[in-house]
């Protein structure tokens, strides 16, 4: 599969001397879901923001859909969709109005009702963002990234703070977007999410990529090193119990 994104030796040093990203390189294939995992402060968000053209690059190159981010940040933004970690929107605007405004900013034509239906918010067209639940907010936020029919969308911790039902619901949405041919790059703290959604994952720590492969390969490599789980893994998890008891139905 051809790469849609090539990141080469990307580095970020902030003016206060903090070296947040230390020369990382990776590529994302067209049509895949690529995950960046890592603890807080590992440099995930900074990496995304440099790729998106939201934050100046200290050194290294980013080639996205054939365009160098650093040279044409506005052209890059025209082709991608960005969901920020804190998904805040203008207050006092209805969902449809916000979607239309975003479409205008890209010069795009949209069917707002269809777009809302795609993310399961067809009944909320006249709502304000502040009246949505956490999961609905995230789904709306993803809808705003789709107004310009992007080649690639960036989701920064899309499921943080959601209940298990809302999280699973969002996984399905992301899988649908992938199935329609859009490349997805996301960051997450949840390993289960990464193994469910991601074709490949990069694990970041302290500004560096410490591993990059498919989830299965990473597990195999670990086992090959002779790793033994310190407890016996039960065939079901507590989350399975929770979902079994409370169901998969969305509560929002």
């Amino acid at each position, binding site marked *: 599969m051809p790469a849609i994104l090539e990141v080469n030796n990307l580095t970020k040093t902030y003016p206060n001397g903090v070296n947040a990203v230390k020369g990382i390189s990776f590529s994302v294939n067209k049509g895949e879901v690529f995950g960046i995992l890592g603890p807080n402060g590992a440099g995930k968000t900074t990496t995304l923001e440099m790729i998106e053209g939201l934050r100046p690059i200290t050194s290294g190159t980013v080639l996205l859909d054939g365009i160098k981010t650093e040279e044409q940040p506005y052209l890059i933004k025209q082709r991608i969709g960005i969901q*920020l970690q804190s998904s*805040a929107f*203008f207050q*006092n605007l209805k969902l449809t109005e916000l979607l*239309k405004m975003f479409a205008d*900013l*890209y010069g795009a034509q949209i069917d707002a009702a269809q777009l809302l239906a795609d993310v399961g918010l067809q009944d909320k067209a006249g709502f304000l963002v502040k009246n949505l639940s956490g999961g609905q907010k995230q789904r709306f936020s993803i809808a*705003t990234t789709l107004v310009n029919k992007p080649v690639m969308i960036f989701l920064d911790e899309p499921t943080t703070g959601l209940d298990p039902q809302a999280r699973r619901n969002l996984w399905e949405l992301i899988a649908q977007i992938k199935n329609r041919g859009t490349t997805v790059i996301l960051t997450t703290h949840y390993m289960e999410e990464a193994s469910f959604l991601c074709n490949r994952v990069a694990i970041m720590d302290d500004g560096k990529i410490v591993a990059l492969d498919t989830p299965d390969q990473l597990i195999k490599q670990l086992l090959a090193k002779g790793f033994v789980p310190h407890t016996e893994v039960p065939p079901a998890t507590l989350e399975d119990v929770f979902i079994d008891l409370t169901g998969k139905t969305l509560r929002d």
Partner: protein
Amino acid sequence: MNQNTRSFLALTKASLKMYYRNKGAIIFTLLIPVALLSMFGFLSSGRGPRIQVGLTNKASTEMAQQFVAALKGVEAFNIREATETDAAKELGKGDIDLQVIVPENFGKTEDGKPAASTIQTRFNKGRPQSGHMANMVIIQIVTGLDKKLTNAPTVLDVKSEGVAVNNLGYFDFILPGILSMSIMQLGIFGVAFSFVAMKASGALRRIQATPVHPVYFVLAQATVRLLVTLSTAVILLVFGTYFFGFHMMGSYVNFFLVCIIGILIFLGIGFAIAGWARDETQVAPVANLIQLPLLLLSGIFFSRDGFPTWLKTITDYSPLTYVSHALRKIANEGAGLTELPMDMIGMAVWVVLVYIIAVKLFRWE
């Protein structure tokens, strides 16, 4: 349509919707100025700035009645009829500014000739300006009546265009002041809080994630504030004219032009604060620190004539002084823009200054 224009229009439309759906902002920018204006309007229609005249008419002639009617016709006068002793007491207490006594023989004829008669006026030494002005008016009325009586041909005359002088009251002084205040508040508070809230919440960052340069959002916000300012001005003018008889002596075009320059200055200050601050808690103290002294020291509610010289000199340069002074000169005296060179230069310097400061202080995140 050019994409930048389309983006600008979309952001302006969004900003306008956010504005009129924000009840607090509507109350703050439209209702409060109107309420303040009404308050001053009612105050000034009573005791307030009108000249209080205590009238004692001892004569019963037609001439005396004509004189009383003429006095009552002067808008700046508030006529109270009282006996001579009561009126004297009121003058002594400062309840009236001027006492007018029409003698018994006023307008009577003796032997077919008009009787010589003297109207006596006494005024409050503590408010000599009102007293003198009132005296002038009375002298004019009496002279007119005198001419009628003696049938003296009018040889010497003064053609005066100062029609306004007789009618202008405190309300005419206060309306441009309240409008200047709203312009300042709309500029500083109206933009600083909402903009910083969007910056702190990340809503502004979300706009930066689109291909639009965020400066278009700043322009959209400014455009909406400009529209709101002009609406406030129209509402205050219509309200003031209709209910309280506000007098516009000058050109509306010039008046609105000064409003626009004013909002440019105060929007610049608002954006400088919003651009510098990280969140709302940093906005309030700074905005108040700038706004309160301007509000109190720029002569918008009362004249700065009573200030010590040093304070008057400093406050001469306040942006709000320039704006309110220019609005007043236009509205009260019919001044054209070329007759206000100091105000125009002062405002121009402030516009340039605040935008340099705003650009220097601005942080997008």
